[in-house]
């Protein structure tokens, strides 16, 4: 309680650096990969750089665990390490590691030069993890840009195919537009409250009469973030981008950046207690679920099918945003974890079956997979059952927590829409299972044996999916504790 607090601290302290340690580790490893790229010869670059990137993501995971011992604010209250940020850091790092493991085989098969690819994944992960720990809107914007730009480029990495470039360009153009919306919202919020710090904004909005400008600001930010998570009506880019982008990258960008953006959304909606959120979210959630599921019904391309399903899942997730923070926040966090596990796993299988040039991605190519490759088919089936929401998979409890949070907030209408949608959704996931098991095998679609890296990736995501389905308690309790810290 003396002058030292008022004195602006000019030079960052060691503690400040600890608050961004995982990001530093990721940046360093990303740069190492880039620097080494011209030095190793092309044949071996894939192997060497992939391993370095994998080590980088694991080192960042270790840094996160180390960092969790020192919670608190850093860098002039711009970043905050708390159990909330730790949760999302671990999620992003785990997804990154699994995606790198998946890419290992994929890159060799597609004959893509490895260098920038792995570097960009690490840089993207940097942006995503920063998004979850930033508590200042401008920093959040910067982190969002780091993550988005990396994914724009990654989406266009199959340079030989036109749809990949189309995917990248489309993603870039629409994505920039959305980022602008977000920035506009930040500016309006600054105008309304005089600050860009989430904590200060939250206090200001609780104390005073809420200015109209704040409503508009929240709406603009929501539009920007809603685009990033692919919620309807800002979802039209998703199917095209997912179809064109490399399969492991689709697994990446449908989970990690999405989790990070949802983390930002959680902070803005709940920590700020954003005004007027319930009805805004109600409409967007109902639209996303319905449009996503109805769109998925008629898809023949597996990647497009899962793209539409991801729109629907964004809708289920948003239901929890309309609920109360005590139940809503843990529900969202749990949902993101289990969705990450099952979706990354599903895309790992798809990237393996796709083969060279991703030729085999239609439903017909999966005919008789249960016979040609029983193990892969069984694993994909479990991921699909989890996406449907069948018990003892993570997907079930994810939906369960979301729906029960909504019921406790008396959002019966939204729950009914959600339940009906899950019934519709079971049809198209089931279609894929039916095709795999109940049709005659297509002899002309080859299935190569599963390499070690992919096997490890599948084992991790499968294990997580089942773990979250059998013993969801620990993860949920952890998520619930983070909220009690917010509830003031």
């Amino acid at each position, binding site marked *: 309680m003396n002058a030292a607090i008022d004195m602006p601290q000019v030079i960052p302290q060691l503690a400040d650096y600890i608050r961004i340690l995982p990001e530093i580790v990721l940046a360093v490893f990303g740069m190492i990969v880039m620097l080494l790229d011209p030095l190793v010869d092309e044949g071996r670059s894939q192997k060497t750089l992939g391993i370095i990137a994998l080590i980088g993501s694991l080192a960042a995971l270790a840094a996160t665990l180390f960092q969790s011992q020192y919670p608190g604010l850093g860098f002039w209250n711009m970043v905050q390490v708390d159990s909330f940020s730790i949760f999302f850091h671990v999620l992003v790092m785990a997804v990154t590691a699994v995606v790198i493991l998946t890419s290992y085989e994929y890159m060799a098969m597609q004959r893509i030069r490895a260098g920038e690819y792995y570097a960009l994944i690490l840089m993207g992960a940097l942006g995503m993890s920063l998004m979850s720990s930033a508590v200042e809107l401008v920093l959040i914007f910067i982190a969002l840009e780091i993550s988005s730009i990396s994914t724009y480029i990654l989406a266009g990495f199959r340079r030989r195919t036109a749809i990949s470039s189309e995917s990248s360009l489309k993603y870039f153009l629409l994505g920039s537009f959305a980022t602008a919306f977000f920035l506009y919202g930040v500016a309006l919020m600054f105008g309304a409250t005089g600050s860009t710090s989430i904590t200060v904004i939250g206090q200001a909005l609780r104390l005073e009469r809420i200015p109209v400008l704040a409503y508009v600001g929240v709406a603009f930010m929501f539009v920007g973030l809603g685009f990033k998570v692919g919620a309807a009506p800002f979802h039209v880019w998703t199917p095209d981008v997912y179809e064109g982008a490399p399969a492991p990258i689709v697994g990446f960008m449908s989970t990690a950046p999405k989790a990070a953006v949802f983390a930002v959304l959680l902070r803005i909606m709940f920590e700020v207690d954003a005004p007027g959120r319930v009805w805004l979210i109600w409409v967007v959630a109902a639209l996303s679920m319905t449009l996503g599921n109805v769109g998925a019904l008629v898809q023949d391309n597996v990647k497009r099918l899962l793209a539409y399903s991801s729109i629907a899942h964004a809708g289920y997730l948003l239901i929890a945003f309309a609920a109360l923070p005590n139940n809503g926040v843990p529900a969202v966090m749990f949902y993101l974890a289990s969705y990450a596990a099952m979706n990354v796993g599903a895309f790992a299988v798809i990237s393996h079956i796709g083969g060279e040039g991703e030729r085999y991605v239609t439903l017909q190519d999966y005919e008789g997979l*249960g*016979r040609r490759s*029983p193990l892969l088919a069984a694993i994909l089936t479990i991921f699909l*059952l989890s996406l449907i929401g*069948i*018990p*003892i998979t993570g997907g079930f409890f994810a939906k*369960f*927590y979301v*729906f*029960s949070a909504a*019921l*406790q907030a008396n959002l019966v209408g939204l*729950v*009914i829409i959600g*339940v*009906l949608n*899950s*019934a519709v959704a*079971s*049809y198209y996931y*089931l279609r894929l299972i*039916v095709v795999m*098991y*109940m*049709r005659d095998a297509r002899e002309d679609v080859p299935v190569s044996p599963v390499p070690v890296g992919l096997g490890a990736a599948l084992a991790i995501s499968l294990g997580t999916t089942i773990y979250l389905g059998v*013993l*969801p*308690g620990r993860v*949920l*309790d952890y998520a*619930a504790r983070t909220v009690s810290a917010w509830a003031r």
Partner: protein
Amino acid sequence: MSTLDNSMLTLVTFIPLAGALLLLLFPRRDRDIRLFALVVSLLDFVLSLHLPVHFQRAQAGFQYEINNQWISNPNIHYHMGVDGVSMWLVVLTTFLTPLCVLISWKSINERVKEFFILLLVLQTALIGVFVALDLFLFYFFWEATLIPMALIIGIFGHGRRVYAAVKFFLYTMVASMFMLAAILWLYAKTGTFDFVAIENAIRNGQVENFAGAATWLFLGFFIAFAVKVPIFPFHTWLPDAHVEAPTAGSVLLAGVLLKMGTYGMLRFNLGLFPEQSRSNAWWIMILALIGIIYGALVAMVQPNMKKLIAYSSISHLGFVVLGIFSFTQLGLDGATFVMLSHGVSTGGLFMLAGIIYERRHTYEIAEFGGLAAPMPVYATFFMFIMLASVGLPLLNGFVGEFLVLSGAFRDRAIYGILGATGVIWSACYLLWMYQRVFYGKVTHPVNLTLPDLSGRERAALWPTAVVALVMGVAPILWLNAIDPAVQTALAPFTQLASRMVGR
């Protein structure tokens, strides 16, 4: 209670699953796989006999209970237990599974390993449905039955198997969504999934807003069960599923899966919502009667033997629903007894149909005729089990139907009268089919050389015939365990009735 008693239900439920996991590791030697599946299912049957042998007959309430916390949030318990009704359904399941293994010995010769794994997983799920006393656990097992059954139909079935499997899956899946919504509502208001706790909370009026929601909750559960039974007009999935399913699939589908629906009505609709059951009984009874008569009439004109048996199931299950919603001791006793006897006799009929299909690859009744001459043993077994199904006194079908009808008479005479015609219809269609298939001259020369039953097939049929006879001669062995359970289920109704009289 010894520790063995406590873990008995866990053992009986999960031994088939453990067997399935071991099968995964087995080499692909088809004969070993079949033998192993047979041993596992027999072991489970023998173990499950522990339940009726050490069951405290006079005692109401659940026995062999086990109740441990599984997940703290949501508050889910590993809570299992059986009363007189569910215990016999468990034994019915373990009784039919080894027979299914035997009957599939030769007819399944591709992807043998997958088939027996699915069969054993299905058995675990089925037993789980009957022993679960935690609504969440119940819902989990309920959904878990769906996947192996759909795969058994879809992979190992006949011509239009994929269509039938998807139809089966979607019908049940969509219907159980309503049940899930009702379960979630109850959880949101009571904070528990425990059946007994929720039952008490409702009876003591501790659930807020219950009066307004009760009818919807009742319907949520009822729709899920009605599709499973199936009650007219939700029955259209059943003939497709039966005709396309392999024999073992049909046996378990008719023998056990359909009973999940009627068991659910008895346990959950009556247990949790007595007043709503009472006020909705009139239209449910009418639907049951339509099911009995309509099912029988459609069965009469079926040219396909298996479809005929499938429609006869709709008719018989109508009796069960009629008995349950008569709210009389006789009716409920009878309903439970019909569940068991229908499982045995219809299971037997499907096995018999499967045996002839293995020889001729058709179910068309017109393809046969005069089979009694080349296959006398087969014809005798068919006659015996068919008479059990028709409801000949001293065989099992008679006891249950008689009790149901007397219960229905007590409720309202017209229900009993209309229901009784169902017995006549079933004699018509089954005897007529028997006549066309077995009597007269052999009309198709191929049928002249058909081999009679093999030792394995006899081994599968003898137990059904014996059990059908014992159940018909000494039903008291079953009923003295069922009685107390039914009395408990009816307790709120007698209270309800006396309260109404009091007014």
